[in-house]
């Protein structure tokens, strides 16, 4: 019976998706009926509230759009920072590898919310103390800096793992062709390592996308903060919070499925 179900659903993927959808709708509806029978979605989620949660106010970027903006900017910056840190840690030159290791371990061991607080509250004081200048940074800038800091520490570990996964023979083969160390590293090792890293970086992006909800604490009006603003006004938390949970789920689920597909593709390329 079970084997038959497996084979049947492997053949008919559309039917499997439909079955899942029905299940999810039935489960969600019955959960709502048991837990919160008098939920009123239509009066809680009016069009302008949904618009505010997704796109923010008219004259400034906010809501879900700002969440994506934050995630994209931070992942690009931390990709650069993480590459530098990862290569520095991987290299055997001690002046580079020891500071990089310290940085990575520190930011991996700190709670993300503490990093955000540090950047938002302590960085201006630090700049005033060391460079004797007055720095005022907005909450959005602090958020991007904080994400870049801890996300580059995470990506540096991915980069290092990718570099370690390249067999040593590649380097030696490049050298026998007459390349020097730098050429071998840039033309032979790095491209291969980056191709292997793509899936991990996409899944890191998913986790960064979820982490953007933390900037709630310093007052950036992204998706979660926008939802809590509305919730504070009308106090219909079940409806509002389940709405944002569903949207977060849809985005993160789609992205993680894309990461899974990429992983399969990359594995096929490497093995062939």
């Amino acid at each position: 019976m079970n084997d038959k179900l497996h084979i049947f659903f492997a053949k008919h993927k559309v039917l499997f998706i439909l079955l899942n959808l029905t299940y999810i709708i039935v489960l969600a509806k019955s959960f709502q009926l048991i837990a919160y029978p008098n939920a009123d979605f239509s009066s809680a989620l009016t069009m302008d509230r949904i618009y505010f949660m997704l796109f923010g106010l008219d004259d400034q970027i906010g809501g879900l759009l700002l969440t994506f903006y934050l995630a994209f900017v931070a992942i690009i910056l931390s990709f650069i920072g993480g590459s530098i840190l990862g290569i520095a840690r991987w290299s055997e030159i001690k002046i580079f590898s020891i500071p990089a290791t310290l940085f990575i371990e520190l930011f991996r061991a700190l709670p993300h919310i503490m990093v955000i607080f540090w950047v938002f509250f302590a960085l201006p004081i630090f700049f005033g103390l060391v460079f004797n200048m007055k720095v005022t940074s907005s909450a959005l800038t602090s958020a991007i800096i904080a994400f870049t800091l801890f996300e580059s520490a995470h990506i540096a570990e991915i980069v290092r793992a990718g570099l370690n996964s390249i067999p040593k023979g590649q380097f030696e083969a490049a050298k026998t062709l007459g390349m020097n160390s730098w050429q071998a590293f840039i033309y032979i090792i790095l491209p291969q390592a980056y191709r292997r890293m793509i899936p991990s970086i996409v899944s890191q992006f998913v986790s960064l996308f979820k982490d953007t909800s933390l900037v709630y604490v310093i007052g950036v009006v992204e998706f979660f903060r926008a939802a809590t603003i509305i919730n504070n006004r009308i106090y219909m938390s079940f409806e509002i919070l389940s709405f944002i949970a569903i949207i977060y789920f849809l985005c993160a689920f789609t992205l993680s499925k894309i990461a899974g597909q990429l992983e399969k593709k990359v594995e096929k390329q490497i093995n062939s």
Partner: protein
Amino acid sequence: MTYEFDWMVLITYKQLLIDGFLMTLKLSIIGIFFSFLIGSFVGLLRVSSNFMLSLSGTYYVEFFRNIPLIVQMFFIYFSFTLTDAFPILVTFGNFLGLENHNEFFSALIALITYTSTYVAEAVRAGIQSLPKGQMEAAKTIGMNYYQAMYYVVFPQAIKIVWGPITSQFLNLIKNSSLAMTIGVAELTFQTQEIDSLTFRGFEAATAVTILYLSLTLATAYVMSFIDKYALVKVKSEAGAVS
């Protein structure tokens, strides 16, 4: 613009820091225990050959993994009154010496559901990485499925994925700082408290950072200790079987 450090503030307000540390410790220990328990259970569901069971395991993992932890916490805290729904939590909370039961248990449940998905994935990966012969060999010597799982397959799988599980537990300790957003008085919350009392957030944050670092390092050490001395027996048994 200069800033003068005043480290005495930490000694004046040390009680706040100690309370926060204990609260983080409570969240972490109970969270680690239950997330390991539930995570292993869901991981076993996911590798089950029963189609419906593995599907429900997948549902659990995908659902709780793809929603940010802070959203889960807010959802539980603002939508439900846990102590009304489950009065036993009051007893448990009194046993732990808590004042705000609702906040604590909302944060705890969100932490457990969020972390247990990652533990479940690790357990599933560990079981699938074992050769099928282990299960078959256990069955040929007369064990049923559950016995084979309990005595042969599961301990070996845990041994393999102990590293990833450790890092998930460390993540749980770090994520417990999010509980401050709903008002659980743990370490990060106390930083804000000291900051608003004395305007000395810098010193408090330094102390709390060091406390977090020592907590995560200590946990990593305990986990590697378990790996060395408790799971070493598993390895020798696995060697004898294979």
